């Protein structure tokens, strides 16, 4: 940690030393070293490592500003020379660009660092051995990703933020007879082979049920239990444009009727955005945007069924005269948590009675944004429940349901226990987002195809 953070500090000093007159410089770094092992049929499909680091450079003079991102080589001298060249390229652009009324950044000189002093990752050989031991003869498919992730911000005004996490994420599924599967994951900061084996064994224990003949379910309304992973999919869909101030003010949020007070959700629905997903035990790390704004300790996005506070990017803060919440320009939550309810997870089957246990949802999208209606598919371990007991797997079904209904009058119960899920996304870089959610029992959940 100290080495990367110190390199970033040295690089920042070199770059800021090249600023002229009243210029302001903002630097941000996103860097990671990752091991990726892709598995299929319990064997290695692709394995390798990636070292990547990108430096964002923003040059400002008053409200005029220009930005570029470049790849870093890891050699501070080479990288500093390149960054100063970029400054020289951006400088003449300031004359071509108009003043930007919505440009703002944290102009303080506060410095904060969060250091993962005792990384608990396994060597790649040990991690792979643990996976193969746990997988046995199972048809295991998935990916193991591990390594440090660094984020940094520095301004020529003296603001300095640095955060490094060492994390792993083993995202897998076990398949039976080719067509049906159960999903599992083991993610965190301290790798333990025994815990990995327990997770794989837990998933494997569901395979016997999956091997039974599949039950065809006709379109219609069913009482369903949405396991935490399925609940997470619904909320992540809402996170796409639902909670950002820009989407509120430009009337594009799918939660517009909630925002404008025309609809409410069930009073048991309270959603938070926090630094680490609530009381999840995740290692403390700093979260901040590329303009030096820290994410607040806690925001309540939905409070007892009513709309709460929005997520506000630096730009929206200036445009709509609000306080920035340290989120990116997409204004999406990165540590969402839904408060739990009263139902013991062990009683979820009984609460369903006859209906469906949905392990995961998949490929969600809005089918009617104004009504906050979402469509998507069931996937992985989804079972027909009879008399409170899962009795047979069901074929993948399409649902189409309004959130105002599913989290409104159709909401029967939320489970007391919640599950912390660390995001396995690796688009461009390894995600550091998380979500902490209970399971839900929903009545008359609409299946269409």
């Amino acid at each position, binding site marked *: 940690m100290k080495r990367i953070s110190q390199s970033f500090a040295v690089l920042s000093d070199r770059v800021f030393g090249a600023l002229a007159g009243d210029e302001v410089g903002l630097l941000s770094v996103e860097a990671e070293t990752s091991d990726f092992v*892709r598995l*299929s*049929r319990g064997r*290695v*499909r*692709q*394995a*390798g*490592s*990636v*070292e*990547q*680091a990108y430096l964002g450079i923003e040059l400002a003079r008053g409200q005029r*500003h220009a930005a570029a*991102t470049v*790849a*870093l*080589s*890891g050699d501070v001298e080479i990288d500093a020379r390149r960054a100063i060249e970029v400054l020289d390229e951006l400088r003449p*652009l300031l004359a071509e*660009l108009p003043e*930007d*009324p919505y*440009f703002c950044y944290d102009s303080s000189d506060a410095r904060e660092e969060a250091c993962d002093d005792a990384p608990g990752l396994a060597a790649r050989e040990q991690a*792979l051995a643990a996976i*193969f031991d746990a997988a046995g003869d199972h048809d295991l*498919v*998935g*990916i193991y*990703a591990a390594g440090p992730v660094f984020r940094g911000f520095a301004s020529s005004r003296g603001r300095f933020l640095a955060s490094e996490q060492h994390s792993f994420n083993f*995202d*897998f*599924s076990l*398949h039976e007879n080719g*067509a049906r599967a159960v*999903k599992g994951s083991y993610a965190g900061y301290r790798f333990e082979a025994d815990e990995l084996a327990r997770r794989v064994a837990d998933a494997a224990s569901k395979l016997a049920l999956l091997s039974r003949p599949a039950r065809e379910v006709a379109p219609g309304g069913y009482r369903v239990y949405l396991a935490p992973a399925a609940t997470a999919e619904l909320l992540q869909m809402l996170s796409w444009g639902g909670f950002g101030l820009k989407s509120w003010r*430009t*009337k*594009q949020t799918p939660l517009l*009727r909630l925002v404008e007070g025309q609809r409410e959700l069930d009073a048991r629905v309270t959603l938070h955005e926090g630094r680490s997903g609530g009381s999840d035990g995740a290692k403390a790390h700093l979260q901040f945007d590329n303009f030096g704004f820290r994410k607040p300790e806690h925001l309540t996005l939905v409070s007892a069924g009513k709309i709460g506070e929005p997520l506000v990017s630096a730009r929206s803060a200036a445009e709509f005269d609000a306080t920035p919440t340290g989120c990116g320009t997409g204004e999406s939550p990165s540590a969402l948590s839904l408060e739990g309810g009263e139902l013991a997870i062990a009683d979820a089957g009984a609460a369903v009675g006859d209906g469906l246990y949905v392990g995961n949802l*998949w490929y969600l*999208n*809005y*089918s*009617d*944004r*104004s*009504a906050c*209606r979402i*469509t*998507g*598919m069931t*996937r992985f371990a989804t079972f027909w429940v009879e008399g409170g007991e899962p009795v047979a797997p069901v074929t*993948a079904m*399409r649902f*189409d349901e309004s959130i105002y209904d599913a989290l409104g009058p159709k909401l029967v119960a939320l489970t007391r226990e919640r599950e912390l899920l660390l995001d396995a996304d*690796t*688009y461009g870089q390894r995600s550091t987002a998380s979500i902490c959610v209970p399971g839900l029992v929903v009545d008359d959940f609409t299946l*269409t*195809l």
Partner: protein
Amino acid sequence: MPASLAQRFKDALPAGADYCSLRFVSSRDERLSVRQGIVQPAWRHEDAGAMAFVVDGAGAGYAATSDLSLGGLSRAFADAARWARLARERSLVDHAAIHWPAPRGDYRSPVERRWQDLSLADKLALLGEVAEPLHPDERIVDWEASLWWSRVEVCYLTSHGAEATQHIETIVPNLSAVAHEGGETQIRSFGGGAICRQGGLEVLDAVGYREAAPRVAEEALALLAAPNCPEMQCDLLVAPDQMVLQIHESIGHPLELDRVLGDERNYAGTTFVTPEMFGSYRYGSELLDVTFDPTLPGEMASYGFDDEGAAAERCYVIRRGVLERGLGSVISQQRLGLPGVACARATSWARPPIDRIGNLNIEPGDASLDEMIASVQRGLFVRTNCSWSIDDSRNKFQFGCEWARLIEDGELGALVKNPSYRGVSATFWRNLARVGDRSTYEVLGSPYCGKGEPNQVIRVGHASPACLFRDVAVFGGMD
């Protein structure tokens, strides 16, 4: 390619490896936009790095780095070799048996007017002019015009003497108008992001970018007053900017051979297509001709070679409705013993190649748009995708569009909002009743196709005429 890269590659090769390759990728992206008359932050991203790939017996490994010095490449090859050794006893693929292509040559996107030939100030002025008609009255609550330009240079070197270079330039113009009144919001865009091409600034004229804004705004406002699309079983006429998604999700992904092989089962999914279907399975009606064509000039995913060196060629994937071949790279072809295409592609130097869709096109037929409309008694004409969802075996789909008009007794009827339709891939294409002619044909695509573990987003091309389907379930929003 940096002049000394080939020499550094030779000097960095590890001793004793059975096969090695180096894929060097540098890129530059720029995004400009004007929103509500205000220039948004100009975004520029430069990237450069290389992926070292090593085969050791059955095993293979990769290591990607942005340290392009001899030391950096040597460390990457050593790390890749370590991965290859680690994988050789548990490798799914027998990499020793793969017949690695040995390409030599160069590919360049066709560019007539270079992006750099217009100054930043002039490009912003263009966007300002284009965006202005997006806001005819106060019911338009948000509006924006944007351009995304990208240049990617790839150099592919192998230990058996291959050397191929590619220079790809793309441009993605967009417009959007958000209309709102009485609690109702409707969004109209310039093709929903599907209007994207290889080329330079000449693409803007080719796709009518400068003239489109008044229509975009007018249609957004008209949708505010339109009724919801009715729920009915009817004929469906699909414009090319919705055909893009229909082709992509229910032909492209199901035919990827790595899905057939099961590699994507944990993330992107599997497919209803099985190996024995190739050569005989009736995928669609006799009117359905689908080509994989990385040679079409200007289409988004044209190239000379894939990222494992296979030479790009145009192939029929579906001919007269019958499935002929899948979208699988050299490795997938050898694993399955089936023909495929040159489609091993990686999103950047930091990700390994996997089977991708590329340019997947529907060949034009013989019907004009008017003829197709005239042939419909009761139907719906849809444009511009705005919602997409399909199951993990790529069968049960549901798509939403920005715009639609009813078709009644052979004529276009009322505008309707929130149009959606759903179906099943395995039967939907068999109901293809008419295929539009060249006058309805558009070369489109998407910069955003997501897949793979680790995840990769990549550009794809889909050229298509308008197409008419019988007996489709359509519906609208909730009143």
